[in-house]
């Protein structure tokens, strides 16, 4: 026990002396929460548009005015030909062009029907679809204003209720995701690298000839990162509760216990990586491709798993972060108890045992 304590102390010195690394490890979750919480959004606002008005009458001007007054659109320029539209699309960030055909007002007045053409820059399909919807709404509102809202018979109304997240805040979705990502990064990558570093610089040999049991060395190496992760969890939870106003609806204790379980799984994965490589660069790339990208892509936090093709859905079952993400979502936001998440917990525990088993078996006490 005393040996173990002094080894942990040694590791802590390593970490605390490297101020830059420590700073980044602690700042990473904070920066991520800020970026995800305040900078990223799929909402489309202030899209830059151009107007190609071949009619130039009062009505088209009023419609253009309505577009300019909406929060979704900013009219950037008026153009005079389709070629101009194409040129502007190719050169700058214009997202939409509104084209009024000649004699718009006359058609509207005499034939009761006139058409507006919307040309989207559909490079980003989601933005294009969203803008078409917004524009259609603006035009139909405008039309309703002219024709004074007639009430239609036989109307089916829909009453929608948003469960768990009535304000549709994106934070409810990404806070659990950021937690999984940060824990994974700190535990897997950092443990793998510290151990491999000792191999690369040759100090592992010195540690191995010391009287402490080899496996204790490894545990001692992992302990400080477990503690560091707990610090990060607290900072993420504090930020999300107080800055982003995401509540913790379930039990905090359960959330912390599950986080420790996930952290241990990540540490075991880091051990496995470290026992199968000899260079820091390789260790880093294995953790990046084997752990970080799958966590980002396949845990369901950035992209919906239901949309993926079958092979990817199958692979996503092997990503620990997927289960942790679902646990955090259930406990933190839905306020569920252990009975709702026992399955995920069991899967994580099984992963932990398998990973630990393999890495113990692979751990060599001899060099070369």
């Amino acid at each position, binding site marked *: 026990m005393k040996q173990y304590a002094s080894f942990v102390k040694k590791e802590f010195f390593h970490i605390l002396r*490297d101020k*830059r*690394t420590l700073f*980044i490890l602690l700042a990473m979750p904070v920066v991520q929460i800020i*970026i995800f919480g*305040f900078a*990223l959004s*799929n*909402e489309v606002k*202030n899209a*830059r548009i151009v107007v190609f008005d071949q009619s130039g009458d009062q009505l088209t001007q009023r419609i253009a005015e309505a577009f300019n007054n909406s929060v979704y659109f900013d009219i950037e320029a008026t153009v005079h030909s389709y070629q101009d539209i*194409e040129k502007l*699309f*190719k050169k700058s960030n214009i997202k939409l062009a509104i084209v009024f055909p000649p004699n718009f007002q006359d058609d509207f007045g005499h034939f*009761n*029907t006139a*058409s*507006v*053409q*919307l*040309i*989207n*820059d*559909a*490079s980003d*399909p*989601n933005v294009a679809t969203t803008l*078409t919807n917004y524009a*259609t709404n603006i*035009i139909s509102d405008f039309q309703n204003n002219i*024709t004074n809202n*007639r009430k239609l018979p*036989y109307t*089916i*109304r*829909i*009453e*929608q209720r948003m469960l768990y*997240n009535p304000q*549709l805040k*994106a934070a*409810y*979705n990404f806070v659990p995701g950021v937690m999984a990502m940060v824990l994974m990064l700190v535990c897997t990558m950092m443990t793998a*690298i510290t151990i491999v570093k000792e191999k*690369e*610089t040759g100090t592992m040999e010195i540690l191995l000839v010391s009287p402490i049991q080899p496996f204790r060395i490894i545990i001692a190496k992992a302990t400080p990162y477990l503690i560091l992760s707990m610090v990060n969890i607290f900072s993420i939870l504090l930020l999300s509760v107080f800055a982003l106003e995401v509540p913790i609806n379930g039990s905090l204790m359960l959330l912390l216990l599950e986080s420790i379980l996930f952290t241990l799984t990540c540490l075991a994965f880091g051990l496995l990586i470290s026992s199968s*490589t000899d260079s*820091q*660069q390789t260790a*880093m*790339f294995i953790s990046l*491709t084997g752990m970080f990208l799958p966590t980002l*892509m396949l845990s369901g936090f*950035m992209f*919906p798993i239901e*949309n*993926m*093709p079958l092979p*990817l859905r199958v692979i996503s079952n092997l990503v620990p972060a997927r289960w942790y993400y679902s646990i955090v979502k*259930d406990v933190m936001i839905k306020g569920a108890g252990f009975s709702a998440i026992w399955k995920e917990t069991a899967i994580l525990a099984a992963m932990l045992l398998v990973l630990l088993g393999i890495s113990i078996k692979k751990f060599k006490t001899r060099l070369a």
Partner: protein
Amino acid sequence: MRTLKFLLQKEFRQIFRNPSIIRIIFIMPLVQLIILPLAADYEIKDVRITIIDHDHSSYSRQLTDRITASGYFLLQNNADSYRQALVDIEDDKADLVLEIPASFEKTIIRENEASLYVALNAINGSRAGLGGGYLQSIVQEYNRELRLKWIHLPKFDTEPNIKVLATNWFNPSLNYKLFMVPGILVVLVTMVGSFLASLNIVKEKEIGTIEQINVTPIKKHEFILGKLIPFWVLGLVILSLGLIVGWLAYGIVPAGSFLTIYVFAAVYLLAVLGLGLLVSTYTSNQQQAMLISFFLMMIFILLGGLYTPIDSMPYWAQLITKLNPVTYFIEVMRMVVLKGSGLKDVSGHILTMLLFAFVLNGWAIINYRKRS
């Protein structure tokens, strides 16, 4: 000049002797370009729905059929009560619950108006919003048919009516992959450029071989060029590989010219390598260099407009994106690949990137010391 030649020879040998680097260069981009665009699909389909039909009338059945036949929804369950349906949402088996109240059909005929109740799992806001939107449009369509059955509308427009015709340029089939693949390729090229270059130099520091180079008459700029050129070449190789994979796997052929892509990439890589170099001058071991590059990359990628549009970011974040080289390359790639923009259209981007390259490399060279 001769010194540089030997240095380059050394670097290339070192790179090609390390099997992990070879794997990183050849396998990583391949796997990522094939897997990521499949995963990065924001298109929302197969929304899982649980329906509670208290009415059991022909209208409620017709409506249910419309919803399941639309292709957007998967009928998860027919529940008997709202409470029972909520369990599906709690267990994450359904995204959406539709409740058709008793005597829905009667109410709509007698009172001209009836309500449906919808509850959505809104933890993932965009999914909930879109699912609700789809449902609304299906119900509206059904509503329109219902009206046509009860009232015979005259054939000509009696009310003034503005028609909206939407045309989608550059990506008429609204294919999300066409949008993602060029962006992901940029991330790959950037990762290799900044990560590998900074790690390579710091490694020499960490294992002490940099001392040996420092005591030789090799000049500062020769050493730096010797480090930059190999990774510059590698970056272009990865770009080419990525373009080939994009073509083979997704049939993506740039609408613009390859010349534009390569001219921009050549300048861009200079800037990114400069960044890697700068990181290496500020760090003393690989762990630090890696974490700092990783930290910067994370900010660059998230704020580069790859996943979420830059226009919808708040003003302060938009300012940061202006200082982010990744933003420019993603923009240029998408402009060239999708819209067919030419050199003239992206000349502003190229100039900005030159400025980046100049500042970052200059800073790194000033900061690089031959003494430890």
